[in-house]
């Protein structure tokens, strides 16, 4: 077990370093940050001096080394645009993104799994077929479009829900802001979290359904039935449990995706999270923010993957058996 975790950790470090390198290298080609920082009347000498002081004239390897070393300490430098530490900016935005992703994950899992089970059990029912058709739309419509449609319907036509932003937020511990404690905050959460959850929801639902259908055909389910166990026990104790292995893997990855894909939802709803900060940084060629964001997202993925791997290890006895050999 320990050597397994150790191996995983080592892999993670390699992954992180590679991401850092790719991210850093890529940024050298997204345009000249100096141009975005100054106005049209700034002279060439002033521009050159600025490039020098930003360290843009140093060799590539020096710039990367500096970046990697500082990143390890959580220091991603000063945002070119805001002239404030990037870590501070990201921390301010973290709560917005995590709250949105959390609500979406709860929605996706809380609805996805039961719906998947239902459509598998009643696979011939009219309701199941209706759900399947709707889910196809959920998978195929782009997030951007879903967001805009929801805004148009609930924000502009019906005027029930706000079209943008987070509403009123409450500060907790000084740095974490939450929208859970105010009415406008909760109202503001509804549309973005649905938008963000829909793809994951349909994915999880279809996955659970497919797995369920397969497991229901296996011998041990037939034996369970033969033993005279009630339907509920067969479906939920035996069948569902066995479908969970792939579902955990996918869900884990999707959780990372929820945080990463929040970019689109955040920009449609002007949700003040990290994704919005990132997209704005791309437009402004604010390299420190972009670098920090990519590294952070990679970090989330790596951590989630590790947790999933360990969970796997706990859930699936076969893995433990392999390791013993």
């Amino acid at each position, binding site marked *: 077990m320990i050597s397994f975790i150790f191996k995983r950790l080592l892999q993670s470090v390699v992954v992180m370093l590679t991401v850092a390198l790719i991210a850093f290298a890529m940024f050298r080609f997204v345009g000249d940050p100096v141009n975005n920082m100054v*106005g049209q009347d700034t002279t060439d000498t002033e521009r050159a001096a600025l490039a020098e002081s930003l360290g843009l004239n140093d060799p590539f390897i020096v710039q990367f080394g500096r970046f990697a070393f500082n990143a390890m300490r959580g220091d991603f430098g000063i945002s070119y645009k805001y002239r404030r530490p990037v870590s501070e900016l990201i921390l301010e935005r973290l709560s917005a993104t995590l709250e949105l992703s959390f609500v979406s994950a709860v929605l996706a899992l809380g609805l996805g799994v039961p719906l998947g089970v239902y459509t598998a059990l009643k696979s011939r029912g009219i309701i199941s077929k209706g759900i399947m058709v709707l889910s196809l739309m959920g998978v195929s419509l782009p997030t951007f479009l879903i967001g805009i449609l929801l805004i148009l319907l609930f924000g502009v036509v019906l005027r029930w829900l706000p079209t943008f932003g987070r509403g009123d937020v409450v500060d907790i511990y000084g740095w974490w802001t939450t929208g859970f404690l105010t009415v406008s905050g909760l109202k503001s959460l509804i549309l973005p979290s649905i938008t963000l959850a829909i793809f994951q929801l349909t994915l999880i639902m279809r996955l659970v359904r497919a797995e369920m259908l397969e497991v229901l055909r296996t011998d041990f389910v037939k034996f369970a039935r033969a033993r005279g166990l009630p339907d509920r026990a067969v479906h939920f104790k035996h069948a569902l449990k066995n479908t969970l292995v792939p579902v955990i893997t996918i869900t884990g990855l999707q959780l990372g995706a929820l945080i990463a894909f929040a970019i689109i939802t955040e920009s449609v709803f002007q949700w003040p999270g990290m994704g919005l900060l990132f997209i704005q940084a791309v437009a402004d060629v604010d390299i420190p923010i972009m670098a920090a964001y990519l590294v952070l997202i990679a970090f989330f993925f790596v951590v989630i993957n590790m947790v999933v791997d360990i969970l796997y290890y706990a859930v699936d006895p076969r893995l433990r058996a392999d390791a013993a050999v």
Partner: protein
Amino acid sequence: MKLRTGLMVAVAAAALAVSAPAQAKTFKFAFQGDLSSLDPHSLNESFLLGTLGNIYEGLVLYDEQMNVIPGLAESWRITDNKDKPAGTEWEFKLRKGVKFHEGQDFTADDVIFTWQRAGSKGSDQKTRAGKISNITKVDDYTILVDTPAPNPILVRDLNFLYIMDKEWSEANGSTNATSATGDDKGNYANLNANGTGPFKVKSNQADVKTVMVRNDGYWKDIPSNVSQIDFTPIKEAATRVAALVSGELDLVYPVPVQDWQRLEESKGVNALAGPEARTIFFGMDQSRDELLYSNIKGKNPFKDIKVRQAMAHALNLDAIKQKVMRNAATPAGLMVAPQINGFNEALNLPYAYDPEKAKALLAEAGYPDGFEVTIDCPNNRYVNDEKICQAAASMWAKIGVKVDVLAQPKSKYFGKVLETGGYDTSFYLLGWTPGTMDSENVLSSLIACQNKETKTGLFNLGNYCNAKVTELAAAVGSETNQDKRNAMISEAFDILKKEYGYMPIHQQPLSWGVSDRVKVNQRADNILDYRYVVVK
């Protein structure tokens, strides 16, 4: 004594009259970008300066039509001091009794301090600070300002040079402008503000929300009855428009041109589309002996005036106006808009659309089958910038010139075509608003020959170069007689036009979406002045 009591009563009455309608009226608006700093000397950009212009103020202000009106200076004049070169010394009488938001008095020291700070390392207002070579304090409310050369439009440059309080800046370690350097964390003034303007910053969360409240002690009567302003940046155009139509916001800008009709059809909102003072134009490389991006080797076709004429006469500006800009642009024949001083109606007639003549000219110039060239074009800077390039390319294709459109985001585009990118372009589309609202800025930046020493023509990317025009541009900069000055401006523009140095396209429209509940003034430089915002 009696008079003073009377005055106080009048002041109290006025204060009552002003405060009575201010029953917590909140004005909410969104812009596509955000307020990146509160430091008035950190970035020379329209939105930042426009917003901070409600919190800070310069010695002069702009009225609704962008005429100069007294601000923190009550009056000014050019002195007749015989010891100084003629026209280089100004006297400013400063306004008495003005207080900063935190209670400090506004005096001559603050003006001198501001000028020094604007010239400090890291300031993006160095150009404006550089228009002044020295300031002498006569008394607390009188200063003498020296300029390096006679500068008839000095006061226009002072509009955006916002006055900061000396004591406050010193007490908070903000005597230098927040610089963009990598190791500068930004100082106190980057996140806090203390100006003399009609609004104070209540809270500012970068890129999320900025709340401003009315400064009750403001020295001037203003039309606005707003007590609080909520600004939210909304990047997505569709979200911005939806937020306006849903009634959550009172004003959003910019609105995509294709959404105008939707706004007109929606209840309670309207599109506000006045002409912007920005002129959009095509420029050509007229200095290199061989174009960087063309199939013609060994020579530069754009050096031949016949080719430039052919390109200009092949353009159908009316078609661009109708098809690309939905009739909202004003085709131009001049490099400045009507709002700019020095604009000359007689010269503003666009080059006539005449493809036959263009073809003939091209054949005369030795290119009967045309040639190929690449045009650089931004795709997120001006209204429909990429579409304009594409439409123009199809027009040039009709006379046989194959123009490849290289459209890029502004950061890439500017990095390539500007001086920092080594003017790496053969043909480009650019837009320009002179910050001073005077033709001199256009002449010296865009039209005079490139010259790094005199810092003229630095944005003349294709280096159109005519000695006489350059001379005129310099003369315009120091001529104080308005009539003579305007005659020189017209002469320079006339030469430029006859030499086909640039191809002006149009003035693009401003595009705001406004709720019927509010009345705003749309300034030609796309700046929203809260002083004129009235909530019904």
